[in-house]
């Protein structure tokens, strides 16, 4: 096993934040991480959603949004920080983007590119797969 391949298929903020937190610390600790945002997991990355703060939240997510941004950076800021110091790549699902009729410019700038299922599986071959 050489790192983690995380499939993010949830739009719920606390799940997305949990992925960014764990992935960021792992990558910063020299554990390679791939994040594949697919299905509804793509939605929180939309620029419009990030700018408006209109996330799908439960009780913990609501508290996160109330916190000072400097105290609790949101997931996209955590990913950006992790990419600066660690081995982490993020990919957006091509199929979900086709359904949503979006392209990478519609999302915050954390993605390294787009992938289909085969591309993800190729990169996940030597990694432990985590589904969120």
């Amino acid at each position, binding site marked *: 096993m050489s790192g983690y391949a995380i499939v993010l298929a949830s739009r719920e903020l606390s799940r997305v934040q949990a992925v960014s937190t764990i992935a960021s610390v792992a990558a910063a600790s020299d554990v390679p991480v791939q994040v594949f945002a697919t299905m509804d997991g793509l939605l929180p990355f939309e620029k419009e959603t990030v700018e408006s703060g209109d996330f799908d939240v439960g009780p913990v997510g609501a508290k996160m949004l109330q916190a000072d941004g400097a*105290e609790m950076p949101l997931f996209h800021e955590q990913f950006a*920080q992790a990419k600066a110091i660690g081995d982490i790549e993020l990919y957006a699902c091509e199929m979900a983007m086709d359904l949503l009729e979006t392209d990478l410019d519609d999302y915050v700038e954390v993605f390294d590119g787009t992938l289909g299922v085969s591309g993800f599986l190729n990169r996940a071959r030597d990694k432990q797969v985590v589904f969120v």
Partner: protein
Amino acid sequence: MNDSEYDPDVTIDSRDATCPGPLMDLIGKVKEAEPGTVIELQTSDSGSKSDVPEWLDEAGHDLLDTVDNGDYWSLFVRTN
């Protein structure tokens, strides 16, 4: 001046930042530090106070001391 016997080469002020902010700040400094560097990490996050030593243990660096300053903790770390 602090209540520890250790005189840090680098001080990281991560007070008010929540998990994993203090740890990420520390990792960033550790990666660029020479071996033997003493780092003081200041955190008010109780989760980080216990989680940072776990990371240090796995990464092979030393936790020298933890000082309770009342409204925050100082974790003194030596890089290896």
